[in-house]
């Protein structure tokens, strides 16, 4: 019907009735497309407009120098400081990426022996494999992945990175008629003392140990704090409040100075182990509070319904309460992890050569002493930390969005 209207004969006269819906009108020009978007998002209110203008001005002032320093004027290759010094040919020198390139191996492995670096590479590969397995939500056998990450990886990594002492057995066992001669030699894997570990490798070791141990310990502490058993509750509260009440650096100093006082000198743990214990305890106290918030968000009715069905305490926790509690706390958990990843830099105060410390050391290298060396090193550090932390937070956002599908009102 071209006109969209139709005359229908009704008893007693005519009524005009539209035979089909009126075609939808196009939206007003300025409400769609780039202009519409800009109006809605950039200039919606006077305050918005002012903020937009200020932001644009800030970008105009700040961005070009940063881009110039990091990219345009940057020096990408060179053998020593000469490449990064201002000269007639290049009056403005930007970031000295040649310095970073030259020290990339040092930033990655620290003073780990060069002929043993393949071991660290295998560790990186195994770690990446485990993280990928756990982070990929549809991966097969994720339970096995968790086992790999929590049990297999730590043990294998320890022997891989630390080494296995060589073993030689040369024994003669008398068996009456003939002696049984056993001779066996295992070459081992050259022992690399932890004092030679360094760089990204140690940052990852500290961060992963902290992250991996803080989750189960944090959950146990949170449950302990909510426990009805007074002793368990008191101990949990004391531990959490004490650790949260002191800075990480204090915990690290205590771990590295006080821990040896409590154990016989022969058993005194390694410097790195002490730092790892400190970081783990510190992060689990924070994780405990994060998990506790999640546990409190799960209604009591969930416990009751689960108990009424006959599920025990741990079954209820595993299948009903923790999945809900951890889901609501994903942002906080990731927040803790990001903070922990950055806090690992503090281990350098107890003499451990983490990533930042290697940069700190390298920038003092006289071969590369230029006005831009420090800035380049720190820019590189900032970039690496940003990439790591930002990808953690992006991943968490993705998980949250995915888990939110379907089961939220």
């Amino acid at each position, binding site marked *: 019907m071209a006109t969209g209207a139709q005359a229908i004969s009704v008893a007693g006269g005519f009524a005009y009735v539209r035979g089909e819906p009126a075609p939808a009108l196009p939206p007003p020009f300025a409400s769609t497309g780039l202009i519409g978007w800009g109006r809605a998002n950039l200039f919606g209110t006077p305050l918005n407009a002012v903020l937009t203008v200020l932001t644009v001005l800030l970008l105009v002032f700040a961005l070009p120098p940063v881009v110039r320093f990091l990219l345009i004027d940057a020096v990408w290759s060179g053998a020593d400081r000469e490449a990064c010094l201002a000269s007639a040919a290049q009056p403005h020198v930007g970031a000295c990426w040649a310095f970073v390139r030259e020290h990339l191996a040092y930033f990655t492995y620290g003073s780990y022996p060069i002929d043993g670096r393949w071991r660290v590479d295998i560790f990186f590969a195994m770690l990446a494999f485990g993280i990928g397995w756990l982070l990929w939500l549809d991966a097969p056998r994720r339970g096995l992945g968790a086992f790999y990450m929590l049990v297999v990886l730590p043990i294998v990594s320890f022997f891989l990175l630390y080494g296995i002492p060589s073993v030689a057995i040369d024994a003669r066992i008398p068996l009456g008629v003939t002696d049984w001669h056993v001779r066996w030699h295992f070459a081992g894997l050259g022992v690399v003392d932890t004092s030679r570990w360094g760089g990204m490798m140690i940052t990852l070791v500290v961060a992963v140990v902290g992250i991996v141990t803080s989750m189960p310990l944090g959950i146990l502490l949170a449950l302990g704090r909510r426990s009805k058993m007074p002793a368990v509750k008191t101990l949990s509260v004391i531990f959490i409040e004490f650790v949260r009440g002191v800075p990480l650096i204090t915990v690290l100093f205590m771990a590295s100075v006080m821990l040896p006082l409590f154990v016989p000198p022969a058993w005194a743990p390694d410097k790195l182990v002490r730092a790892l214990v400190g970081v783990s305890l510190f992060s689990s106290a924070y994780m405990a509070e994060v998990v506790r918030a999640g546990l409190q968000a799960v209604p009591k*009715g*969930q416990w009751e319904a689960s108990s*009424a*069905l*006959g599920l025990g305490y741990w079954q209820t926790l595993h*299948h009903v309460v923790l999945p*809900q509690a951890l889901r609501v706390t994903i942002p906080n958990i990731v927040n803790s992890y990001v903070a922990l990843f950055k806090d690992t830099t503090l281990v350098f105060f107890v003499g451990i050569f983490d990533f930042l410390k290697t940069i700190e050391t390298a920038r003092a290298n006289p071969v590369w002493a230029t006005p831009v060396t420090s800035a380049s090193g720190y820019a590189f550090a900032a970039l690496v930390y940003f990439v790591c932390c930002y990808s953690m937070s992006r991943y968490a956002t993705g998980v949250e969005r995915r888990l939110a599908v379907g*089961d939220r009102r």
Partner: protein
Amino acid sequence: MTVAEIKPDTIAPSRAGGEVAVEIRGLYKWFGEFNVLRDVSLTVRRGERIVICGPSGSGKSTVLRCINGLEPFQRGEVVVDGISLGNDLKRIAEVRREVGMVFQQFNLFPHLTALENCTLAPIQVRKMAKAQAEEIAQRLLKRVRIPEQANKYPGQLSGGQQQRVAIARALCMNPKLMMFDEPTSALDPEMVKEVLDTMVQLALDGMTMLVVTHEMGFARQVADRIVFMDAGQIVEVNTPDEFFNHPQHERTKLFLSQILK
């Protein structure tokens, strides 16, 4: 609920056998200083359908929650299916396997689908194979007439549908006794009927039922006995007919006059 809505056609009284399903003797409970239950005694026989009613705060729900150990009690004895409920956690777990409970607030697990809600306990507690548990769950979801919602999450279901999933979830454990704690009180009026119908069906199938409810129509239609509680005590136990037409106690009369305006 008005008198007019009370259906005259009641279900035939259950052929309650001699077997005792639940025996409560001299039950006392305190919440701190507050005495919630005072000398409550009640015997429920197998196949019997009992409705507990009374004003709010009278201890109705607490009696149910003492039966499956959700609430500890201080004095008296509760014997469920021959198992005396003390503070022994193992015995409480045994009892809970045999007693299904439906809550006012449904309490479905929001992170699991309707089907997973139903299969969780059979798989974890009864150690049933997943396929078998799912088959049973599907059958029971069909019985509560929502088989098509099996793969939806509770948040995607209406209140009435959620409560029926909750009933199916309890039935999946193949309980000997079903307890309902105000199952329709949190529902929109138009959804009350679908839940009550499901419960009537359950009664017709011979399930032993203990129901705390304000739905007097349901009580009249289904109950073998009605228990009236006030201030933590059982005031009157009577058949529906006697209870509604010839209440014995003044307190019962007052309650009925208020609820059956």
